[in-house]
């Protein structure tokens, strides 16, 4: 075998090697080195780039005075991981709040909570305790939730064990309505005391204070009941066609209650999918609901407030804005005005903000607070070191193999 192979090899012509072999090899070496350097640089710097674009450069300003003019951003982004908790650095009063999913923390895992956006654009998380029920006061200073009242300015807590089912804030933010079973309680927040207002036939489902503070619209047993705030006596009731539109359901003149009708998407008789529609209606002491508004395309969630006599509706808009929009929808059919887009879960905006604020502020994306800076700095160092730990042995191995 060896002889035959040698014999065959001896018959091979000697290859002509071009003069440029050396130069081509060196050019290829330069190219490869540049590519490797670029790759290594990309690999090492990408975590840093990620951190930078995530909000490293954005920093929340110190909170502004409460009476400063408010400008609501045109777009509000979701809360990021490792957001500081309210207890670590209170940022109240809040302009809006929304439920937020898992937020990663070193050492602790906050799995769910309420994200609070301060007037300075800062984000805080209030970790979930018992359930996801909560109500933001109209001035954004307090947040009521199961069994407690949270002061968003100093993170102080006030226990209210009877507050098992939260129903409504009044416009002043000084009275809170909640229920324990079928018992309805009215709390005077400043006096730190409550009184039982009524015992209902069944548990209340939703409620709204009239803007003048004299009446309450409460729904239970499928009907809408209007109660006197002082005595708890029922003044009138009505069948509901749709459901009460939310905490801001009373019209600004405190005469009627707004109902929201939503038509789910459906397949029509011709097999086409008809999108969901909604419209607002009103019910007054006569007990008859009137739906003056035409059906609107979209999926309305609740009535968020009133602006210049026009209702402002929170509307799901995943197709165009990938989130929830606050839409001013004149009842007479005038031009609708997009106020703000929340790229979050359903937000609750403090009513006073909707009434007082200007709109069209620059988009708000969460900036890093001190904790997040430390968190992401540590994460970046860890990623860079990990990249180096992977790259250096690879490099050395290649050199050894050579």
């Amino acid at each position, binding site marked *: 075998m060896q002889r035959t192979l040698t014999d065959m090899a001896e018959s091979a*012509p000697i*290859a002509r090697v071009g003069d440029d072999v050396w130069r081509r090899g060196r050019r290829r*070496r330069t190219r490869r080195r540049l590519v490797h350097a670029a790759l290594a640089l990309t690999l090492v710097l990408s975590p840093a780039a990620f951190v930078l674009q995530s909000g490293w450069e954005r920093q929340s300003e110190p909170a502004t005075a409460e009476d400063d003019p408010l400008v609501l951003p045109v777009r509000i982004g979701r809360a990021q991981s490792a957001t500081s908790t309210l207890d670590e650095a209170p940022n109240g009063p809040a302009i809006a709040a929304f439920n937020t999913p898992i937020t990663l923390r070193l050492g602790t895992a906050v799995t769910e909570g309420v994200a609070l956006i301060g007037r300075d654009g800062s984000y805080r998380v209030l970790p979930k305790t018992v359930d996801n029920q909560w109500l933001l006061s109209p001035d954004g200073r307090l947040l009521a939730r199961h069994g407690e009242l949270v002061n968003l300015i100093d993170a102080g807590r006030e226990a209210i064990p009877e507050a098992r089912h939260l129903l409504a804030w009044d416009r002043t933010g000084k009275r809170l309505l909640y229920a324990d079973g079928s018992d309805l309680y009215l709390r005077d927040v400043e006096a730190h005391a409550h009184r039982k207002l009524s015992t209902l036939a069944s548990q209340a489902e939703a409620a709204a204070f009239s803007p003048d503070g004299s009446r309450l619209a409460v729904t239970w047993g499928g009907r809408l009941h209007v109660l006197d705030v002082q005595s708890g006596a029922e003044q009138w009731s009505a069948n509901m066609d749709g459901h009460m539109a939310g905490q801001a359901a009373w019209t600004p003149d405190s005469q009627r209650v707004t109902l929201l009708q939503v038509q789910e998407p459906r397949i029509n008789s011709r097999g086409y999918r008809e999108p969901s529609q909604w419209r607002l209606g009103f019910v007054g002491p006569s007990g008859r609901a009137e739906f003056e508004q035409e059906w609107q395309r979209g999926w309305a969630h609740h009535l968020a407030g009133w602006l210049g006599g026009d209702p402002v509706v929170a509307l799901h808009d995943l197709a165009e804005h990938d989130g929830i929009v606050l839409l001013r929808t004149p009842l007479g059919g005038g031009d609708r005005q997009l106020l703000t887009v929340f790229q979050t879960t359903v937000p609750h905006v403090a009513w006073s903000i909707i009434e007082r604020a200007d709109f069209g502020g620059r988009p708000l994306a969460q900036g890093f607070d001190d904790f997040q800076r430390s968190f992401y700095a540590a994460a970046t160092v860890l990623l860079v070191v990990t990249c180096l730990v992977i790259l250096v042995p690879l490099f050395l191995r290649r050199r050894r193999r050579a």
Partner: protein
Amino acid sequence: MGMDGAEESFHEYVSGRVAGLSRIAYLLTGDPHLAEDLVQQALIRVAQRWEAIRDDPDPYVRRVIYTQHVSWWRRHRADAVPSDRLPERSTSDPAHQISLRLSMREALARLAPRQRAVLILRYYEDLTEAQTAEVLGIAVGTVKSQTRDALARLRVVAPELEGVAAQ
């Protein structure tokens, strides 16, 4: 030593080894033009890493030439479809060695590239199984099995090499 020195030593190495490399390349490819290309490409890669390997370039050069050949084959396997049967050759060939050489060339062409490489490393370059395994980056057991399979295949595709393959 500067770049000029490196270039000089590279050219010195090439001029001393090009004949040997051409033979290996020819055994691997069975075609003088392909062999020339293979040598050329291998030397470009050698030039690329010359500073790192210049003290003992042979192992690297050998590995480059064999691995490059395998990857070439993978890229161009569709073009190289061997026929099922070797062409008939005149039994009246006067030069028995020439006949064997031709048979060997065509039989090698019908082996898988790694089998071919194993045979050349073991029987032409006279490397041990361990050295062969190192050059090809495979296990010693794989070298043994590839050698066994290659010889068996040679016996099938070129029975006239029976005596040669047994040696």
